[in-house]
Structure formats: C-alpha cells, structure tokens
C-alpha cells in the first residue's frame, strides 16, 4: 500500500519530525508555532514536490549528466553547468495538480488577510541546511515581496533550482556530500511589513555569555542585518535581571518595499531616523522574552530572525521569522568553564592572583 506524501504542508502541521519533507527552516517554523511563538503563517512546498519535479521529463538524468562534466578547477565550467541546470529547471513545469495546490494555498493565505495579492517571502529550506553541525545556510535563495500566483510559482522553481548555484554545487562536491541526498523544500510565508527587523542570539556571540539575549536590529526588513551590510543597533538584555544595555548605531541604509518600483530595495535611511533606536524598550523586553522561550523549547542556544510589524499594536506586532541553532559557541566542547574546581580551589586561585591596574 502506497502512502502518499503531501506536496504542500501548512507550517503548523509539520515540525521536526517532518524535516525530511519540509526542510530544516520550515520544520523549525512549525516547532516555533508549537511553542506558542508568533510566526507569520504560511506553507511548505515539500521535498515530495521536488522529487516529483526531478522525476518529470528525465530532468534528474539530465542534471546528473551535466554535473558529471564539471571540472572543479575550472570556474567557468562550474558556472556554466549551474546556468544550464537552473535554466532547465525554471523552464520546466510542475505537475498541474501541484501547481493548483500551491495556488490554492496562496489564495487561502491571501483571503485570511483580505489582501488579494498578499506579499509573501519565498524561501528555500534544504533538508541538510539548518541541521546542527552544518552551516549550509545562505547558500540557497530567498525572495521577498512576491505577489500573485504566477510570481509565487516562478519563485518556488527558482528556489528549487538554487540547489544548483555554483557555490552550492562546489560546496557539496568539496564536502563530499552526495547531490541526490540533498532535497529541497520551499517555504511560502506571509511577509511582515516590517517597521524594524533583525536577528537575536540567546547567548552573547561576543563572549558566549549564556545569561544574555543579544538583539541586533535595523529599520525596515531584516535583510540588512542578516546580510551584515549595515551597522545595526545592538541591545544586550540580561535574561534574569532584564537590564538592557543599549548601543544605538548610526543606521545609514535600510531595505524596504518600494510599491512604485514594485520590489524590495536598499535605500538611504532618512536622516531623522538614523540615530534613533529602531525598537522601544517594551519591544526589546518582549523579544527577549520570546528568545528565552525559544531557547528553552529547543534546549540549546538559538539564532533567531525577528520582525516588528508596522501596523499592528504592541505586543501583536512582534514576530519571529526564523530560528536555527546557534553554531559557534554551541560547537565548542562542553568543558566546564570553572574547570571542575571546588570553592577552596577557586579561593586559592583568587588568593594567588593579582589584578592588573597599571597603565
């Protein structure tokens, strides 16, 4: 008896048990929803769709053939192969009933918000991507402010094809990761019309301090912070005392949706906002509260993308857009910081020490 896997799955229906179907990013969104964290709604186009896509018209075989001819030493051959594969994929069509399902879901989402061409983000979610221990992140595509059925379908295919960017291909070849083992899922998520957005860590990435939540943010969409192209505000919140250390920066550029140009773009931040904090204290505390909850849910330090909606009132304007395990401090061997010392040993250490004072 065949068990038919779904081609699409709403986020709240798929958690970590479904990573194989929806990829790491989307599964994590499902988990966040389960933990009662506010997440913009959406659905995954599953790996089943991807597999179906590959199996149509001999695409899989064509791709394998092109890949086998790549000379890793020759950048041009890599780039050419990528170009050909991606073109192949974007020109092909998905199964009709899959396209109808995707469109139906998108329409449903639009109706919920009563916005006909609801802007969504279309994001890749590879099955190997956000697993702890691997930092494949960022090697696949993200598209912001996608509107309408046609655009959604186009971007879904583009995302799938992003498994075959030159970088992604070469990374897998160098790491010895078999191409066919990496499946891809694509998330379609309502985009937050962000007044401000950014990332936060449930420890201090500078020194690994587990008692802090560090929030970085900028005006507009979170792109500028995630990609690191701007100087964000930085807020360090103590998880216990809730003390906030504020480092408001000079924010010179932001990423906003331009309705006239019909797309997302980077613009200069208006001068009057450049030195203003992009989040209020109560928002900072609420973000930190959610960060704590997410960390407790997963049981390990997290790297979380957040956004604050322009229209909604506090606290309904706060959203977590993504969460993945923090990769740097958590990778370090769990050695006791104090070196298994008793009070007496620590006292001896201290008694023998001196504090450096001189200039």
């Amino acid at each position, binding site marked *: 008896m065949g068990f038919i896997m779904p081609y699409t799955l709403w986020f709240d229906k798929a958690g970590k048990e479904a990573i194989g179907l929806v990829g790491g990013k989307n599964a994590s969104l499902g988990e966040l929803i389960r933990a009662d964290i506010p997440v913009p709604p959406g659905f995954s186009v599953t790996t089943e769709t991807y597999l179906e896509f590959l199996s149509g018209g001999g695409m899989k075989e064509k791709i394998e053939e092109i890949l086998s001819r790549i000379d890793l030493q020759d950048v041009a051959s890599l780039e050419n192969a990528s170009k050909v594969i991606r073109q192949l994929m974007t020109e092909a069509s998905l199964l009709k009933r899959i396209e109808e399902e995707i469109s139906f879901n998108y329409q449903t989402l639009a109706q919920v918000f009563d916005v006909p061409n609801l802007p969504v983000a279309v994001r890749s979610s590879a099955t190997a991507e956000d697993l702890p221990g691997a930092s494949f992140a960022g090697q696949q595509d993200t598209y912001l402010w996608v509107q309408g059925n046609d655009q959604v379908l186009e971007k879904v295919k583009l995302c799938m094809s992003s498994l075959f960017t030159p970088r992604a291909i070469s990374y897998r070849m160098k790491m010895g990761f078999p191409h066919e083992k990496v499946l891809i899922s694509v998330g379609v998520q309502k985009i937050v019309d962000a007044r401000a957005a950014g990332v936060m860590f449930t420890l201090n990435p500078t020194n690994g301090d587990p*008692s802090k939540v560090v929030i970085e943010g900028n005006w507009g969409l979170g792109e500028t912070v995630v990609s690191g192209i701007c100087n964000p505000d930085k807020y360090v919140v103590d998880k216990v005392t809730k003390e906030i250390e504020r480092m408001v920066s000079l924010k010179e550029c932001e990423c906003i949706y331009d309705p006239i140009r019909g797309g997302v773009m980077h613009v200069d931040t208006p001068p009057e906002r450049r030195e203003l904090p992009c989040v209020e204290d109560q928002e900072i505390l609420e973000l930190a509260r959610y960060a704590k909850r997410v960390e407790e849910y997963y049981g390990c330090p997290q790297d979380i993308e957040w956004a604050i909606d322009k229209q909604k009132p506090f606290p309904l304007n706060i959203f977590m857009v993504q969460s993945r395990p923090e990769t740097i401090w958590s990778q370090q061997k769990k050695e*006791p910081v104090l*070196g298994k010392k008793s*009070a007496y040993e620590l006292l001896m250490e201290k*008694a*023998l020490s001196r*504090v450096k004072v*001189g200039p």
Partner: protein
Amino acid sequence: MAQKKGFQMPLEVEYPKGLEGWEEMYPPMYMFSKDRKEWEEKHFWFHDKIHAPEAMYPLDLIFQEAWQISLSQYTTRVFCIPPAQGIAQRMVGCYMYITPVAPPPPEIIGEKAGLFQKRVFYVFDHYDELWVSWLKKFKALGEEMNNIKVPAELPKFESDDLVFPDPRGYYTSYEVIEAWDRLVDLMIKGWQYHFQYLNLTYLAYLMFADTCRKLFPGISESTIGKLVAGAYVQMFRPEEELCRLARLAAAVPGVAKVLKSDISPDKKIESLRKTAEGSNWMVEYEKSKDPWFYVSCGSGWFHYEGSWTTKLEIPFGYLKGYVERIEKGEKIERDLAAIDKARAELAEEYRKLIKTDEDRKSFDDVYKAVRTIYKYAEDHLFWVEHWFHTIWFERVREFGRLFVKCGMLKGIDDIYLFNRFEVPYLIEDMVTTWALGEGVPSRSQYWQARAEKRKKILDAAKKWSPVPALGTPPEEIAEPFTIMLWGITTEKVQDWLKGMAVVPGEVTELKGFASSAGVVEGKVRVVKLLEDITKVEQGDILVCPTTNPAWAPIFTKIKASVTDIGGLTCHAAIVCREYGVPSVTGTGIATSVLKTGDTVKVDGNTGIVKILKRA
C-alpha cells in the same frame, strides 16, 4: 608640553598657607621623609576618602593606627594571603593617604600559600561557631571599656574609705593614668579583633565575583552584589528597633502625640515619664538603646559625629516620621523575608543558565562559601565602628570634661587636638600638678595655645582640596581591600590622572561603579560634612564622599546616591541595594564637580551620571 602627566611625588606636595606646623599633630612615623623616600616613591598613595574624607583630628587617628596594624598583620602574618601585603598610611597636610604595600618576594609567597590554605579553609569550615565566639569575645571587650571609670574631678582630699581600714595604696592620680592606658589598650585590641575575618570575607567576595564573570561574562557588578548581600544584617537593627518602637507608640495615642510634637527630645522624654503608658514606652526605649542606639550618626570614625545616644534629635526625628506614616497606613518596615526571597530567586535563575553539572556544583560550592562568610562583613560593622566607638567617645568625653574642670583645656572636645601619644602628657601634667598641692601651675597655657594653633591649622586644612593620589601607580594589585572596598582599578587610576586637569565647570558626565540598579533624574544635594545630612529633602539625589549605613532612614527620602569613592561592597552600595535606591559609587570627583541644585540623571545600571542642567 607633550609630557605624560603623572602623579606628584609625596615630598613634592606644596602646602597652602595656614598649614604650617601641621606635622607636629601626628606621630613621626606618619610623615613622608627623605629616609624612606625610595620605598615611598615606588608606591601609589591615594587619599582615603572612605575612612578619612575630612581633615584628621589628632586623637581620631587612633582608629587608623589600629587598623593599619591589624588589617596588615592578618594579610602578612596570620592568614597569610599569598601575594598581598599590608596597607600603609601617611598624613599629608591633615589628610590620610594609604597604599597597598608591594608584594613580597616569591619564596615568601610560596611559604604563605601553605599556611593560607590550612588556616583559611579552617575558618570557612567552622565559620558559624567562630562567629559566635567572636561576638562573645568582642562584646566582653566593649563591656570592659564601658566599665572604665573616669573620675569627674580630682578631689581636694582623698576620702576615708581609701585610707581605712587598709589604705588602698593608689589614688586618683594613678586611676586617671591607668584609665587612659586601659582605654587605649582596649581600642587597639578591639581593632585586632575587627579584622579577624574581614580580609577573608573580601577575598571570598572577589572569588565569587570572578566565578560569576567566568560563567556569565556580562553579569553586572550590582547583580553580583545583590547575590551576596544578606537581608538579615545587624547594621540594620537600629532602624528595625525604631520601627518596633514606632509601632508600640502608634498603638497608644498619648505616646504617639508626644512623639509627634515639636518639642525637644529631652522634653519629650520628660513628658513621657510623667504617665504610666509613657513610662512603659520608655522602658522599651531603654531596651532598644543598648546596644542598638549606640549607632553613630555618621561613620563612627569621628568624634564630632555623635550617636543616637548623644544626638537624640536623630532617633526622635525618625520616630516622629514613622509614627506619622503608620497613622497614614503606610508600611515602614522593610520586608526582610521578601528581600531574601528575591535574592534566592535571582541566584536560582542564574544557576539554571549554567551549562554543565560540574560548573553548577562549583558555583553552588562557591556561593555557599561566600554567603557564609560574607555575613561577617555586614555584621561586624555595627559592633566595632558603631557600638564600640560610641563607647570610646563616651569615655574620651569624660577625660575631656576632666581636663576642662582642671583648667588644662578650654573645651571638652579640645582633647581631640592631641594625638593618643600626647594625651598622657596632659594627664601626667594634670595629676602631677594636683599631687604637688595648692598654688602650683600646670603648663595649661602651653597646651591651650597648642590647641588653638591646631584648630586654626585644621580650619585651613578643611578649605584645602588634597590631590587624589601621589607616587607611582602600580602594575598590579593583589590586596583585596584595595580592589573592592576602595575600588581602585585601572580606570580609577586613569581617571585620577585625567582628573588632575579636570575643570569642574566643563564636566558633563561622571563615570563610576554601577552599584545599585535603576535610572532616575532629579536635583542634587551635595553633603560633604556630616552636619549637612539633616538638610537632605525628599526626592533629593544625595552626592557625598561616601554614604553610611547609619543614615539608613535617609534612604527612604532620596531618589539616588552618587559618591566619590567606594567599590561595589562599600556600604553605600550595599545600603542602596537594600533600599532599592539607584547608586553610582566611586566617581572620584562627584563632590567637587556637582553643586546642590544641579539636575542630573543617575543610571545605576551603567554607572553613568549625566549633568542635565546646572543650578
């Protein structure tokens, strides 16, 4: 022009006019001199604003003498903290400067380590019983001092009972000599007791702070302090007794009425003793008085501060306020159980964030150790600097009165113009003159002239602002008090170097230790001399050299406190945290830069004080 500015050398200090002759007021070993120049210039001397913020009266120096010996010996000869040595003192134009003595040679450090380990761990293990025996021993010492009899006058003729049936053999002359010697002896001994465990408590605190910072690199100083400080602290008993008495009074309208009235404390007491209910309340008052009202009105270091037994307007003033608040339905007591619970919860929250079981165990171990012994820091203060010192001042006042009665000096407090080595001269002169018979002159003119001269010198010294530091800043400091109590850090040293060129009018921001959390804005009240504490009004931001636990009732009035000196465990910090009042300590320059009436913003989370508007 581009020379690096350093601190002056001690012998380079230029004294202002009016201070000529100041050196003779203090014992010779307190002077900087050519014969110790090399050693002195290698060290870093800073003005001790915690214990000696004001110009030093010679007799008050005895406390400083006593602690120089005591603090130092516990570090060098008793508990042997390995790389540390003692703290040396010098006088500079009537102000006291101190330095942590440079570390001993490496082979000594090694020897000390062995002794340290054995002795210190023993204390930690047995602290609870050791505290009980310490308190018993100390109270006995104080009682001995209390029982010293100073004759009110030198009799014309010794009485019969000292001759019959068997002549005593020693008379008033000897009694006076012996009383003074006994008094001084007990004071020196009391300070030997004082430091018995104090060095260890500070070391334990430093160790705990280190541990916290290894686990949580961004943890704030004020949080560390909160984790350690206890709620049930003997230093706060005087205020608790006031609350107790206020409640008793509020329940009896007749008593409440008297306490709320505007007559003098003496008249209030007189009036209360006239009624049965008033008398009953006075019985309770007397119960509280010994020992709890032996608390100093200031730090306990200066004879002119007074205590709640001499300046009755202080406790009676507080009582009036408390009765009024009780009648309004306000709660006047601090909820100690709640404070303690809050501390325990804070610790538990951080503990939960610890990653490994081993670290958690180490943390528990360290926390337990520091919480055990830190009580000593908090409890000893009342018994020594307050109760014991108040008894000392009572006895010394009796000597002062005797000097006046015998015409040796003009004022009762003039005795303080002579250091403790000189007072025996006056005593011997006085009893010798008495012994020699009628019509014999003493050298009273000489003593009185010296007293007048020294008063003028001290007046001139009070107008002078001594430099914050002299000598060579150290590379490293191992001595725990220097770090914690005086808050001497790299930044502090740098600030002082910079501050040498600071123009008070140009300063817009001060930086210090974030000693107690919270952010407030308000008007400044600068309090440099103790008597000005009564001028503090509701909502003031108190700015002073250092605050004082005996000012506890003031802390319900003020919005925040800012001090010149003091690290995280100075009493200013501890008291402010207990009262939930934001505090920034150790700014170095607050009292010289801020003026009463200035509007400031005090951020106890970051340790920054911003000047918003000048008065």
